[in-house]
């Protein structure tokens, strides 16, 4: 009888424990990690879901967490698609402590940046500088350096292809400033001149800067396809200064069966591009140090918030990824994947 009573009491206690556990586990489920941040930065990028910008964002976010800053990818949680400009406006109106911006260099953008600066919000521009604005810092490539790297690739391609001077298309986005694209062209031309012994009259390759009008999200692909449709003006070498253009060009070359005839030098090194380089559909690619880019912009904003000033320009390292390097990177990734 006593045993029976004990069993009942124990059962009652066990019920209590089970219920308590369930309730507690619910508390845990409900409350995700909450970060008591000191500052709130906005990350605004056109096409921020692309691999390139995701890498940049992740690096920036990592850096931000170190400083106890919450970095918000401001468009991602909103219920509709916004242009970078609109997102910038929202960020400014939301009185962020700092804004990391990339996408367009229009007057409206410049004025929004100026408004932000007037409101005491630090603004760091990535990739394409908004030269007319009073942004605190620009974090981006040294386009002359980029040109030099392209020149190096062109050289290697022409060595293989013989004496003939190649025709070159440089695909840049419409947001890129004239100055930037000119710097690339200049760097290539300079390198050719240098090779031919500072000869002003040296034969230079035919370089055409193609600005891809990205009015909406799919227009880039259409614009690039259009180049391939005009068979007479097809270049020998295509230099892509954007990860999306690189992929589009690569796909077009495959689709139009022009592999080997049109050599592509790409931009950025994600899995697709690395794979293409490994297969030599893309000759090589320029890899941008997204990690450095992400970290630098947060560091610049942090510095600005704390000291009131910061560097107005922070360069980002670039690197050529050729077949050998691509192979190595793929191996590394596979190994990392396996060890994981």
């Amino acid at each position, binding site marked *: 009888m006593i045993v029976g009573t004990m069993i009942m009491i124990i*059962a*009652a206690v066990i019920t209590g424990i089970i219920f308590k556990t*369930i*309730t507690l586990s*619910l508390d845990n489920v*409900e409350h995700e990690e909450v970060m008591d941040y000191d500052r709130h930065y906005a990350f605004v990028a056109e096409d921020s879901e692309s691999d390139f910008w995701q890498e940049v964002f992740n690096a920036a976010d990592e850096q931000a967490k170190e400083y106890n800053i919450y970095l918000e990818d401001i468009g991602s949680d909103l*219920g509709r698609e916004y242009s970078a400009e609109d997102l910038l406006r929202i960020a400014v109106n*939301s009185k*962020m402590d700092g804004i990391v911006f990339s996408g367009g260099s229009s007057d409206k953008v410049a004025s929004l940046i100026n408004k932000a600066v007037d409101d005491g919000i630090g603004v760091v521009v990535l990739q394409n500088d908004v030269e007319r604005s009073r942004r605190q810092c620009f974090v981006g490539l040294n386009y002359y350096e980029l040109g030099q790297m392209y020149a190096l690739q062109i050289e290697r391609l022409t060595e293989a292809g013989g004496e003939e001077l190649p025709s070159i298309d440089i695909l840049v986005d419409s947001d890129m400033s004239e100055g930037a694209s000119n710097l690339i062209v200049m760097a290539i031309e300079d390198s050719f001149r240098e090779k031919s012994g500072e000869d002003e009259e040296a034969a230079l390759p035919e370089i055409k800067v193609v600005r891809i009008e990205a009015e909406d999200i799919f227009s880039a692909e259409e614009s690039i396809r259009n180049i391939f449709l005009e068979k007479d003006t097809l270049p020998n070498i295509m230099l892509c200064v954007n990860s999306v253009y690189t992929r589009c060009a690569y796909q077009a070359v495959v689709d139009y069966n022009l592999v080997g005839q049109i050599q592509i030098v790409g931009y950025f090194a994600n899995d697709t591009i690395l794979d293409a380089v490994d297969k030599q559909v893309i000759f090589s690619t320029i890899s941008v140090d997204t990690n450095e880019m992400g970290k630098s912009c947060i560091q610049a904003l942090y510095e600005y918030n704390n000291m009131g000033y910061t560097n107005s320009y922070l360069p980002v390292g670039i690197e050529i990824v050729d077949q050998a390097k691509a192979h190595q990177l793929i191996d590394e990734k596979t190994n990392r994947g396996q060890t994981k």
Partner: protein
Amino acid sequence: MIGAVRRKWNNASVRQKMLVAFIIPVILILVVNIYMYISINTMTARVDEIYVVNVSLNNLSDDLTLLQNSMKEYLESKGTSALNDYYRAEQDYRNGLAALDPGRSATPVIAMRENIINQSENYLKVAGETITAKRGRNVEKYKASYEEAVKMYSDLQTSIYSLNNSLFKKNTADYSILLSSLRSMEMITIMILAFISIVNVVVVFLITQSMTMPLVDLSRAANEVAGGNFDVDIEDTEGEDEISVVSKAFKQMLASIQRYISEIKESVLRESQLKEHELVMENRMKEVQLRSLQAQINPHFLFNTLNAGEQLAMMEGADKTTEFIENMADFFRYNIKKIDNDASIAEEIALVDKYVYILNVRFTGEIHYSKDIDEEVTEVRVPSMILQPLVENAVNYGIRDIDWEGHIDLKIFKDNGMVLLSVKDNGIGMSKEQIERILSGEAVGEVSADHAASNGIGLGNVIERLQIFTGHRDVMEIFSEGENKGTEFVIKVPMHV
């Protein structure tokens, strides 16, 4: 501890036991139920709360629309009511904003809320500017401001919508988790309740059984006792409750009944033994009576004959013959009269006197008879016909065939509260074996075989009657110093019987 509980339990009354048996399960089930009810209630309350924030966000969005519309209306009409509406809507919106509490949420949600608050401040500022510009009829300014406000309004609505949406997503996830927890909790509740109920039933069964078992045992025993079987076994019950008390009392009662029964049986046995004894004695008496009746045929006839002879002798003047016949007649009369009753010692002595006279006439004075009587004891009652047979025996077996002068001495005296009647002869004596045989009753037949020569009553009969009369076995002693040394018979009777 368990031992102490058990002892307490055993000593509890039936009412207490039953109370415990019902209260413990009821309390347990009650406690478990209340706890489950509270837990499930808390959870349901949380389910209810889940979407509260969504409702408040919807309200906020409505307020914002109202605000925007009233501003637009004012800009269109410059009406006072529209302005009032605007101010009211602004106040409502501000209140709603202040009350906006997304609870403990993840960082993105908190950041979004912060964004909404900041955007709202900017929006309200611009809206306020627009209204002021309209009032000041600054057309260009209010148009530009309004355009800005529209953009901000749209952004704000999107932000509120997005926050609402992501909270809704999160809440829906919470809701489904809560719901599934609720379900599993319900299942657990049902299972635990079922389990406790089963154990409860078992416990109550055990408790009631432990209480009723002695009762069942008792009723079985009572039934058996009612059926006449007193030899029933009742198990010992521990404890001091009423049933145990009844059980113990019943057991005691049973033991008492059994004891009484055995006592009664014993006394009945004793009584029947006593009765048997009485029957044996009566039997003996009847035997004596039978014999005497057989013997009476002669005495009656003889007695009448003798009376006739006495009268004849008296008429003839033969005094000696008269005396002789008279004595003989008396002797036989006594025999007839006294055989059933006891008699006094004096009567017995008189009978012996007569008997000796008759014999001396028969044997011409050969018997020398002397007597020594203590007169104090002559009235003591003894069975009749005890002395004469002894004298007859002494004559027949003691002195009949001797060459010397035969003596018979009768001596009656008191000794130590007893009356001793001694008949002593100086005849041929008896061996020890013969004495033992007479005293143990074996020689009875032998003695009575010589029936014709006696009045029919042998020594054995005398001894038996004496034994029955006195209630002792030791009623006669026979002394003889051997052959030709004579024999002495001593009868012992109590002074008062």
